């Protein structure tokens, strides 16, 4: 009789462990899948930048310095490995791009160029997608970390050696206070 009870407890324990294990695997896969999303968007940005630079190059002879900084930041971002290094390199690239667009504002013939407005829109949407993908990734990482650390799960995770995932840190003041614009055709 006692043997049966023991067997039942063991079976239950195994099933229970398996359930926790599967849950952990599922959320880890979610995290890795959403990391792929960020990667896709980062690659998209890296591909757009050479296009942009070659389009504005001709008109911006006196701004070679700014352009070079963008290209260097891009090269560093492409070659960066590991999540913290990547996050930092990407933030540098974002800043360099911000400076470039600030400079473009000073060139009316560039601002009216249709190619450039299109590229600018593409880069804006890519920036947004990166930040949204990062939002999703960080949410999922938080979800995964909680699952790893709560009570019964932490035993299972230490047995099967689950590792915690890193957050993708956002740059400081990524979205600063916006300016009010209420004209009918605010662009």
């Amino acid at each position, binding site marked *: 009789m006692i043997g049966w009870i023991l067997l039942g407890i063991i079976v239950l324990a195994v099933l229970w462990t398996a359930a926790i294990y599967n849950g952990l695997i599922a959320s880890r896969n979610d995290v890795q899948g959403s990391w792929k999303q960020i990667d896709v968007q980062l690659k998209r940005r890296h591909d757009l930048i050479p296009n942009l630079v070659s389009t504005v190059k001709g008109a911006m002879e006196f701004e070679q310095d700014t352009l070079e900084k963008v290209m260097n930041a891009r090269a560093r971002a492409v070659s960066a490995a590991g999540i913290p290094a990547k996050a930092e390199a990407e933030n540098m690239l974002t800043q360099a791009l911000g400076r470039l667009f600030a400079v473009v504002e000073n060139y009316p013939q560039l601002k009216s160029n249709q*190619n450039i407005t299109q590229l600018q829109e593409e880069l804006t949407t890519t920036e947004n997608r990166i930040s*949204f993908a990062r*939002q999703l990734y960080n949410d999922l990482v938080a979800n995964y970390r909680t699952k790893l650390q709560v009570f019964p799960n932490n035993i299972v995770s230490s047995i099967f050696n689950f590792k915690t995932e890193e957050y993708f840190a956002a740059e400081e003041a990524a979205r600063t206070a*916006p300016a009010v614009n*209420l004209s009918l055709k*605010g662009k």
Partner: protein
Amino acid sequence: MPLTFIDIERQKTWRIAAFFLVLIAIYLAAILFITAPLGIIGRASPRFWLGAVLVSLVAAGIHFWFSASEAVDSVRRTLDAQPPDPQDEVHRVFLNVIEEVHVVTGRKRTIQSAVIPSQSMNALAVADLRGNALIAITEGLLSRLSRPQVEAVVAHEAHHVLSGDCLETTIAASLFGTLSAALDRLNSLSDRRSSATAGAGLAWLLVKLGYLLNLFISREREYRADAAAVRMTRNPLALAEALHLLSRSWRGAGFIGSGLEMLCIVNPQATTLDETEGFVADLLSTHPPIRKRIGILLAMARVDIGDLDRRADRAEAEARTPAPGQQPLYHAMSPKQEWQGPFTVQELAALAWLSPLTWISTGGSSSADRAWKDPLLGPIFAARLASGNERIETGLTCPVCRQPLVTASYEGTQIAQCSFCAGSLVEMKKLPRIIARTGQDHLCTQRINALARTTLENNLSRRIYRAASRVQGTAIQRIPCPKCTHPMLRGFYSENYLVEVDRCSSCGVMWFDQDELEMLQCMIANRLEPAVAVPTVPPDGDAPGGVP
């Protein structure tokens, strides 16, 4: 309050299930009360009741399915919503923003997008049982919002879709809408039979209850969607600006039919009920007061609502009165060796014959000089050079002067233009968006306005002549359609806007001579219409309307 879109997704399943259960219970009770007066209750056995419940469950299921499975398609058809055009600058932004929403939700759900060809300002979201979801924005709203504002509006609608609000609203609206219509008819039929009215009355009460239940949570939902939009875009001010803009504009009353108002971002009908608070208003109104919504958003951004009002007033006033004297005016010598003008810089840029060698003179000065020497005109030629490389021939020829038509960018969309006579060929489906994007400041110059007025007066008398000539059979000169080479139909753009255009309805294109497109835009923007009723020839019966 869920923190992320993942939590919203998780929470919505049981909420929708509970909502459905309540709806089905109310629905069954309503059916029961309708059938009760037929006199079957008295002699019913338990087995009969079981059968009756089963049958009505099946009926309810079929009703649910048919009322809610086609909702997206039927809304799309009713409003004539078109998928956004990826070639178009403004639509491109909309498509990109939708894609961003997909990224933030981890592609759990595909949301379709559509543009409603209307000048009104509104946005709506629909979802149906087949899993289709649609976010539609009117052309008018899309062309007046900046990018962050479009993001905020789309995020608001996306929350409605993802949280299941849309599905609930769509189903409740279609289901109880039909039922209450049926009841109304029953009531009017059964006036004479007093036994039926009691049951039907109770059923009516229940139907209204189900409807009210839905309305009661719809105010709450709008606040939540606003909050979700802010959480996604991290920009409360953009949503506040967009709502503020909506509150001051035509939101599509009369165009967006009743039954759809619950799906919109703001109620198309501006009612006083919507703008009041309290229990009754909470119960009966579909949307919370806009000013309260804006107030909450502005509190997040620490901006005062009075400030927003004043800025909007000033912006509108500035848009109405173009500041004179700010820009230098030019006279230019045309190829026919005549001095023309005065032109602003933008107007000069639009002149097809302007070249770096054209003689121009500035404002008051009497001396003339070559155009390339003026520093202000440099950008015009630079822009022409830049856009010169990407001129794409459309493969069509100008119907007037036989030159090849080239693709030109006009108000953010592509049209075919003749570089010689400056006439343009516009696809009719693109006209609403061009009209919606009319920029007051640079387009409606004095010259275009004066031209439009003169054309209007000329054409008023011509219209009578035209009607007479139709009777006498005088031939009107027709030009061939550049696409199918059949003669195009010449006529006015509409009864109110008397610009002569040529259309080919089989190809869906319209030909505008030089300046005619601009004139049409300014006529619509400034409401230049025939002021008094003009006596027309009776057979047409086309009385010129007042205000559209």
